[in-house]
């Protein structure tokens, strides 16, 4: 708890410290720059809704990444899992002639299944051959993007589809909006519920315990009878399913169609979010909100304060560096 609060403070300090420095170098007053960023992210209800939308888009993959991390596995393939989850939702949402009450859960689940398949593939390679999941998920990212581009432009091309996108979803497949006149849909609530569920799973269930044992002390876990291969497979498949579900919610709640650019790197930023949240689902919610502010305020900052929005990517990289570095400092001191 203490550690998490300290980490959050470090992250906030890096964001403001480095962000201010970058703005000064670009001859912009940090007060104006951050003012524009915060105003653009939280200035009025519809902007708050957009920020929560970004929060949701980051929260799903971050929870997936955290689940894999718990088992000692590095899933850097969330990006590809988001793409495939979104693509599946984009195709099925148009193709299935069902009423909304049935259509929405089925399409969401299909998106999760697609992401799960992709994560599970890395898990299978790990469990069956011992192939490292870092490189495998990295390869699968690019394969997913190429595959999606091929599928929606080829075998699954539907009438009315543009280049690199599917036709618009029928309104029956749209996720219900929870704040009128905004794009904020039930996906936000779904993400929060998922975080709560994972909190429970990590803390109170045998499966959560097995994940942790496999991650923290694989040798002891193996001797205690935990099947490490199966745990790795399950963890990566679930991790992918959560990211895939996130991709489906972007398609069904925000874009209302799939296009191959649906994720501006959510899968990678999610790693930072999971780390800032110390792999604790409830803290990850706040971390995702923090990064959500950065993401949604960046464009306003560029438009109003003339600060290139790339400063946000830069700062996100430095947050990882700072948080990774503080472990070292703390360990040195206590060693």
């Amino acid at each position: 708890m203490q550690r998490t609060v300290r980490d959050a403070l470090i992250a906030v300090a890096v964001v403001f410290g480095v962000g201010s420095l970058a703005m000064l170098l670009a001859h912009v007053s940090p007060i104006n720059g951050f003012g524009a960023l915060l105003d653009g992210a939280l200035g009025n209800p519809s902007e708050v809704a957009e920020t929560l939308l970004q929060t949701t888009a980051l929260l799903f993959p971050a929870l997936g990444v955290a689940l894999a991390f718990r088992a000692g596995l590095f899933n850097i393939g969330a990006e590809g899992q988001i793409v495939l989850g979104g693509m599946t939702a984009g195709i099925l949402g148009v193709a299935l002639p069902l009423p909304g009450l049935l259509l929405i859960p089925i399409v969401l689940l299909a998106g999760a299944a697609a992401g799960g398949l992709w994560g599970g593939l890395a898990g299978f390679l790990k469990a069956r051959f011992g192939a490292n999941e870092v490189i495998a998920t990295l390869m699968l990212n690019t394969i997913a993007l190429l595959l999606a581009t091929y599928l929606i432009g080829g075998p699954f091309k539907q009438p009315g589809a543009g280049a690199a996108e599917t036709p618009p979803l029928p309104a029956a497949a749209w996720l219900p909006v929870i704040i009128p006149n905004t794009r904020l849909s039930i996906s936000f609530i779904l993400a929060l519920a998922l975080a709560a569920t994972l909190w429970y799973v990590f803390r109170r269930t045998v499966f959560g315990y097995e994940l942790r044992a496999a991650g923290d002390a694989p040798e002891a876990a193996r001797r205690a009878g935990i099947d490490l291969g199966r745990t790795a497979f399950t963890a990566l498949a679930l991790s992918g399913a959560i990211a895939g579900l996130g991709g489906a919610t972007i398609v069904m709640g925000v874009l209302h169609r799939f296009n191959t650019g649906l994720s501006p790197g959510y899968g990678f930023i999610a790693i930072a979010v999971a780390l800032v949240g110390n792999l604790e689902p409830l803290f990850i919610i706040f971390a995702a909100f923090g990064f959500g502010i950065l993401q949604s305020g960046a464009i306003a900052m560029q438009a109003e304060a003339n600060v290139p929005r790339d400063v946000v990517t830069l700062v996100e990289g430095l947050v990882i560096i700072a948080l990774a570095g503080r472990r070292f400092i703390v360990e040195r001191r206590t060693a």
Partner: protein
Amino acid sequence: MQALDLVVTAFAICTPLIYAVIGETIAQRAGVINLGIEGQMLMGAFAGYAAAFAFGNPWLGFLVGGVAGFGMSALFATMALWAGVNQITSGLAIFLLGSGLSAFYGRPFVGSNAPTFPDLGLVKEFNATNIVAILLLAAIVYIFYRTPLGIIVKAVGASADSTFLAGFSPKKIRYAAVLTGGFLSGLGGAALSLGYANSWTEGMTHGMGWIAVALVVVAAWEPLYVLPAVLIYGIASMVALIMQTRGIPISPYLLQTIPYIVALAVMAFFASSKQNAVPRELKKVFAELDF
């Protein structure tokens, strides 16, 4: 198109990759995985172009591109080797940092006219960056297989402890390997902006840094196989383009997945076979993910 033409063009297109792949191969053979290549290449492409613009000389720009990659990898080395931060996390941080920095400071140079490397007129589209790539690759392959230095780098990747007992400093060698790799990936980025594209645009590497990671695996961590691996990748993408223009219905996207699928297969094969190409120290990195 003639077969020779195809190979030469593929080589010209893939020259930036050659720098990056050989650089990452060196680092990984020393037991360090640096996933920040994409960020390093972007910094090399941007800094190289900006310096060429400022100094009015593409060679100086090329060198500055290498130095930019070197600087980014020094930051990586500080995190991963000095502070002992998990290598994967460190690499991803360098990726984000390099993308952000290059886009942030690169804005004024989008659409500007820096002096770039002219075509030499030997074979089509050949310029100095292509020649330097061949020379560097040949030198590195020679050093790697024929000199004590190469043997030591390989030894560090196979077993740091034994190398230490033999009287060498694994840490110093790893620093050297990572920094060399960073310099090379920076050169690769500069070869892209100054040699191939003749311009700078943000995010212009379009994932080349990740392709480089795949090709290190495809080349089975052997510098000798770097050129064939990169060329096969380049030829496959060329063939895809040609087929598309001739209306042959094979998806270029599907063809482009081939190197990644090969990389997965190579990983699976080496991970399960007794004859293992994965540097042993690299496996240790993967095994201890206490980030």
